[in-house]
């Protein structure tokens, strides 16, 4: 069995270099500096074990192909171009048929269906060496969950070829928007990372803002004007039950995020016009104040190890990024470029901070190292805002709002190289995305 090469990271750049399979090397996408040449791949329809499985077998193959192609690291060779056919999952692969169309990677699979249960088996092939990458695997679940099974297969394929964790079997909490700018209706919603399976969690009676997933993806923190005043709520995603967190009369609490322990919430509390950062034990409601400056201290986000918090403050006169210990204390400024920096979010790998930057009337999504070095702007537009990290720390989702009276909000993803900017399909306007961890 040919093992794919573990990819080595040079710095933090994530640039695909297509496999040198023709030269006899193993199939891989090497993550290094270089020119992108997406790897051609084919995913023929999976083989159904019965007529009842035919449709889902085809759908699963389509979702796997869309996941892989959506990364920008792979290029699908469409079915019309296929010469070979896979009609028996266990029959030997006719590699010549796939070489002829220059498919470097081939994903084959079979779907069996029994009542409401669906089982998906798959294999990944290095076409030019004729070897299997990794071992065949299978996932089983209810028929309704076929998209998740497809995402799990795609995660495994991505992972075997890149050596990186995948991000397809994940969800995104966001704010669904409709109506004109001066009467915008906002609803909390959740969907698969690719925009499928949208579920609304609140009605549009109150403004809701900035949902944030818990570390295990079971709960969402968000801010709502339900009482007329901004308050933080925690919502159980499975049960769609919510409760308001403790707060003081005459104050505004907002900008919540979970600590990695899933038990502590860091948030902003405004009193008398001044906004500082606090933490709260979500069970006891006990709070501790972390900052006390006569400035706007907000948008806190924990490091993955829970030891530090990155946040924004205008204590210097303009919005800038700072890092402080998770217990509070000395905050060190890390942003020093031109313009204003806000909404910092620590990457799941711990190496980078994503942020929103405003400079000369434009908005950017960017990343920098946690010491502020190597700032890189990934996007530019009239209004880009609110980055959130894919579970593998390689992709960022954010909201873009267009200019003018008819301005609309759309979610986009972008690679941390700044490449592969793509809109996420949502039923209407969408903002404030929060990407979940990979599902179990």
């Amino acid at each position, binding site marked *: 069995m040919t093992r794919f090469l573990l990819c080595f990271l040079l710095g933090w750049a994530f640039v695909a270099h297509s496999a040198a399979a023709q030269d006899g090397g193993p199939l891989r996408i090497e993550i290094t500096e270089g020119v992108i040449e997406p790897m051609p791949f084919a995913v023929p329809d999976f083989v159904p074990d019965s007529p009842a499985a035919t449709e889902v077998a085809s759908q699963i193959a389509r979702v796997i192909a869309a996941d892989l192609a959506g990364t920008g690291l792979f290029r699908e060779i469409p079915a019309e171009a296929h010469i070979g056919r896979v009609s028996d999952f266990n029959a030997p692969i006719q590699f010549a048929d796939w070489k002829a169309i220059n498919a470097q990677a081939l994903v084959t699979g079979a779907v069996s269906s029994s009542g409401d249960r669906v089982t998906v088996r798959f294999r990944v092939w290095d076409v030019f060496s004729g070897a299997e990458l990794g071992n065949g695997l299978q996932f089983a679940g209810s028929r309704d969950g076929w998209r998740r099974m497809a995402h799990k297969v795609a995660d495994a394929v991505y992972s075997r070829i890149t050596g990186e964790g995948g991000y397809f079997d994940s969800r995104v909490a966001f704010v669904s928007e409709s109506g*004109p*700018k*001066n*009467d*915008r209706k*906002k609803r909390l919603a959740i969907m698969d990372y690719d925009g499928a399976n949208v579920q609304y969690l609140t009605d549009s009676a*109150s*403004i809701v*803002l*900035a949902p944030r997933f818990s570390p295990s993806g079971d709960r969402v923190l968000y801010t709502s*004007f339900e*009482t*007329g*005043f*901004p308050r933080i709520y925690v919502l159980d995603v499975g049960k769609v039950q919510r409760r308001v967190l403790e707060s003081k009369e*005459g104050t*505004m609490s*907002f*900008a919540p995020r979970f600590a990695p322990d899933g038990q502590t919430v860091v948030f*902003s509390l*405004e009193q*008398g*016009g*001044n*906004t500082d950062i606090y933490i709260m034990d979500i069970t006891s409601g006990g709070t501790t104040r972390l900052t006390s400056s006569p400035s*706007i201290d*907000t*948008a806190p986000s924990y490091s993955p190890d829970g030891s530090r918090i990155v946040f*924004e403050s*205008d204590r210097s006169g303009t*919005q800038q990024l700072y890092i402080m210990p998770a217990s509070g204390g000395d905050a060190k400024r890390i942003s020093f470029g031109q313009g204003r920096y*806000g*909404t910092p979010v620590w990457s799941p790998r711990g190496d980078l901070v994503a942020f*929103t930057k*405003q400079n000369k*009337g434009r908005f950017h999504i960017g990343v920098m190292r946690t010491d502020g070095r190597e700032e890189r702007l990934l996007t530019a537009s*009239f*209004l880009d*805002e*609110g980055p959130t990290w894919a579970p593998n720390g390689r992709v960022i989702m954010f909201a873009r*709002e267009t*200019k*003018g*009276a008819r*301005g609309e909000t759309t979610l986009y993803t972008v690679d941390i190289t700044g490449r592969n900017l793509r809109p996420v399909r949502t039923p209407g306007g969408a903002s*404030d995305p929060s990407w979940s961890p990979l599902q179990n």
Partner: protein
Amino acid sequence: MKSIRTLILACTVAAVAGCSNSYLDDTNSVDLGGSGVGGAAGSSADPRSPAYFQEAIGDRVLFAVDQSTLDDAGRVLLTAQADWLMSNTDYTAVIEGHADEQGTREYNLALGARRANAVREYLVSRGVSGARLKTVSFGKERPLEICSAESCYAKNRRAVTVLAGGLTG
């Protein structure tokens, strides 16, 4: 002084007339049930009416970009608001702070809170009991004007004093 007042009045009426009043939707302010401009009760000819407060005195002050300090015109208007509140003690008020769209969501919420509090502190300094004045920020969530230009942004960077039910309520 008088000309400034007239100018403010003209601007305020224009702003109110062009406003759908939708920013009130999510507050817990009491609907005073009036049919006057902007929904305030009574006739603006009656100096004790909320309509008079809204139209003749002016219910809002505007702010410079990323600022929460009151300018001279704002202080003049708020002095009149304070006088009205001092002589119409049945009313409480919620001061709503707003920002324009040029800013990140959470920062703008905090900025709106600064603006609302600047107004509250001024009214208190003029003798209005703090117990009658609440503040809330809508950040950039409830713009009045929706063009992406300074002419609209200037009207959106505001703090609006919204009269609410009596102290007993």
